[in-house]
């Protein structure tokens, strides 16, 4: 498998809160389970305010997945990350949470999610089947990312989450 088998997924949402407040909640990974209900548990292994390592158990497609992720908080609050232990369906997984304020919308912040990942091809899967599965996976992954962002939108608007039951 080569770099051409790497895929990208993304999503975006407007959150009604100042950029600094939104970025701070995204960094506080221990608080995520109250916002994104697919999380079973989180263990923060290291956090010095700029670098963070955590292990997370999360539900995907009705099953628990264990991932370990390392995050880097840039000086402007944007967050880059990679998963040395990616989801079991992937060989690599990294991405970013980007936060952008707009002077025309004071007190609001646009959050953009980026994911770069590489799915594992099954041994008996043809190239055409693999490409079809990658297309489907990307669509479901983007729906999942959008659902996560929508939970943060709800969290800042009402303090609760209305995540739907997604399969990815």
């Amino acid at each position, binding site marked *: 498998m080569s770099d051409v088998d790497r895929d990208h997924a993304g999503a975006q949402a407007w959150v009604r809160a100042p950029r600094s407040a939104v970025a701070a909640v995204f960094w506080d990974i221990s608080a995520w389970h109250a916002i994104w209900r697919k999380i079973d548990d989180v263990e923060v*292994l*290291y956090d*010095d305010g*700029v*670098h963070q*390592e955590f292990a997370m158990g999360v539900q995907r497609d009705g099953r628990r997945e264990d991932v370990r992720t*390392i995050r*880097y908080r840039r000086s402007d609050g944007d967050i880059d990350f*990679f998963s*040395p232990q990616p989801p079991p369906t992937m060989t*690599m997984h*990294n991405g970013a949470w980007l936060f952008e304020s707009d002077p025309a919308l004071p007190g609001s912040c646009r959050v953009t999610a980026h994911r770069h990942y590489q799915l594992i091809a099954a041994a008996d899967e043809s190239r055409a089947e693999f490409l079809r599965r990658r297309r489907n996976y990307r669509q479901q992954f983007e729906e999942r990312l959008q659902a996560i962002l929508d939970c943060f939108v709800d969290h800042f608007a009402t303090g609760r989450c209305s995540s739907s039951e997604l399969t990815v």
Partner: protein
Amino acid sequence: MQITETITIDAPIERAYAAFADLDRWPAILPDTVAVDVSYFDGYNQEFSMTVERPGGEETVRGFRYCRPPLELELVQTTPPPIMTRMSGLWSFAELPEGGTEVNATRRFSLKTPDQGGPAVTEEQFATTLKTILRTNLELFKEAVERE
């Protein structure tokens, strides 16, 4: 506490950067480095562990680096040396107009207190020791790169 050391290497920036970036080369360059294991590397993000010889025995640190060729390597140790609570750092590389590469190494650290297992010296005093180690290591890298 932060310390910085700088050295000039008579080699193109790409070669200087490559020596510091390739952890598999470290045991051949630094005599106190016993073993290195890179458990993850995707071309930018890197996770590693490294075992070094110290007067009190072998120490294994663990951490990750962000590799930004050929300009920067940023380091954080999630498992720092046992006398420290924090250790992070940066190598930056700059081409010199007259040729060669300037390597700037910065380390930020916090020591444990003596009752936590830290050394019986102040951070200022320990910084002097660490600067000497950092200087020695830079000189060893300079020798290795210029010998290529």
